[in-house]
């Protein structure tokens, strides 16, 4: 899986400065990657550009042939006229029914299949939404704050399990939780803050790629977190 942005420029119509200005960036999968940046730096815009929801003003996004890209965010809802279970079954291929079951078991959501989506807590909604995307056809899943309302231990468990279950897929995980992206990503792409003329470069920081059952050294995590935050604040990169 390969994606590269060449001289990508984008600005929202009617708004001030561009978000990206002749940006060159590439992503090589498979693997679990983080996308980090302070609020308003363009993480979601980049995700929407890659997924094809937005079209760049200039430049191009080159992708390997026939790759399926999905983009999901935390505000998504299931239709309210059916139960969670009915919806999940209707959007899951028969061949992936066992995967769906496994995910729901991992996410501790088996007992909520007869509920309506509106009756779930925010964290439960996040987990159900992620599960339905994971059973779709995809090569790259861009997950934008998809576990924002899930407690930390459960979130860590979900990320570890996701990496274990989908080693051949590529994930671009957008989060404001720097500790999380530092621990679980094999590399974090950091959008620097404070570019009034648009971001031109995204810096890549190799991270710890923590696997299920392993524990990263605290000193290493601290070091990566510091590096990421430094890059994100717009100071000189690593």
């Amino acid at each position, binding site marked *: 899986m390969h994606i590269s942005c060449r001289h990508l420029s984008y600005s929202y119509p009617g708004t001030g400065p561009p978000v990206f200005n002749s940006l060159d960036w590439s992503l090589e999968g498979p693997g679990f990657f983080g996308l980090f940046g302070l609020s308003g730096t363009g993480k979601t815009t980049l995700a929407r550009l890659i997924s094809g929801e937005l079209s760049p003003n200039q430049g191009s996004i080159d992708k390997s042939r026939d790759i399926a890209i999905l983009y999901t965010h935390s505000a*998504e809802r299931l239709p309210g006229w059916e139960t969670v279970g009915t919806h999940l079954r209707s959007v899951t291929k028969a061949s992936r029914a066992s995967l769906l079951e496994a995910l729901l078991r991992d996410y501790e959501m088996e007992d909520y299949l007869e509920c309506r989506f509106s009756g779930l807590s925010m964290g439960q909604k996040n987990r159900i939404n992620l599960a339905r*995307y994971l059973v779709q056809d995809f090569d790259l899943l861009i997950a934008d704050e998809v576990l924002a309302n899930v407690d930390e231990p459960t979130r860590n468990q979900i990320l570890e399990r996701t990496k274990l279950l989908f080693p051949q897929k590529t994930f671009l995980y957008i989060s404001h939780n720097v500790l999380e992206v530092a621990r679980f990503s094999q590399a974090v792409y950091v959008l620097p803050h404070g570019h009034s003329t648009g971001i031109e470069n995204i810096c890549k920081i190799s991270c710890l790629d923590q696997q299920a059952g392993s524990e990263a050294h605290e000193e290493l995590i601290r070091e990566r977190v510091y590096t990421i935050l430094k890059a994100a604040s717009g100071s000189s990169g690593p």
Partner: protein
Amino acid sequence: MKILERLFQFFSIYIVALGLLWAVKIVYGFSDYLIPSPLEVLQIARENGLLYVKAVLNTSAVAVAGHMIAIVLATAVGLVGRLNSWPGSLTRIAAYNLQAYPIVAVAPIIFLFFGDGLSSRLLIAAIICYFPLLLSFIGIFAEPVEEVEHFYRMTGRINWRLELAIRTFENLDKIITVIVGSGTLAMVGTIVAEFLAASQGIGYVIRKALYQSNLAKILVALFLIGLCSSLYLSLIETIGKWIKARLTGE
């Protein structure tokens, strides 16, 4: 119980209005000829009650039929109006411009072409409640519900039927409110048509009472109109609530 609530509201307003009318009569010493006494109103109700009930049922039947026609038509045109292509743009522009015109002013032309029978009343009732419905439906059908539709679009499952189902479901309360509001307009349209030129219905009865300067008859007719409107509107609300409860599983 929505029906009881609506009926109670109507009875309260009607009784207060009658009370005020009679208070004015007493304070200013108006004659029974100008403002009839409560006994006279009751006597008129007893004498003409059945005739008036038939007339108001006739009016209500036309209003309900006109309302249904308008709902079906607004849904069909709303589906075209939601499109981004030229038929959609044309429909939206036409709808926005036409609704700005006081459509009741064309009623005389309708009577000229169709006479003073059922078709004119039906047409006027439908036209008067059609445009508010159409504008609301176009707005609802054309507005994406991004949080729900996103998944279907991403996974290539989206189609116009699914879009419509999502948008209708998400705006069910708004749709029910608009339909209830337009129900009143349908009643208004029918009565206006009967005032103008029809030879049937409660509007025609009121027109005759007006020529006789008989306020008692008008008060009885108004009571029956209010009663029928309240029952019809609360029926629509109850159906809307039932549909919503069925769909949401509440």
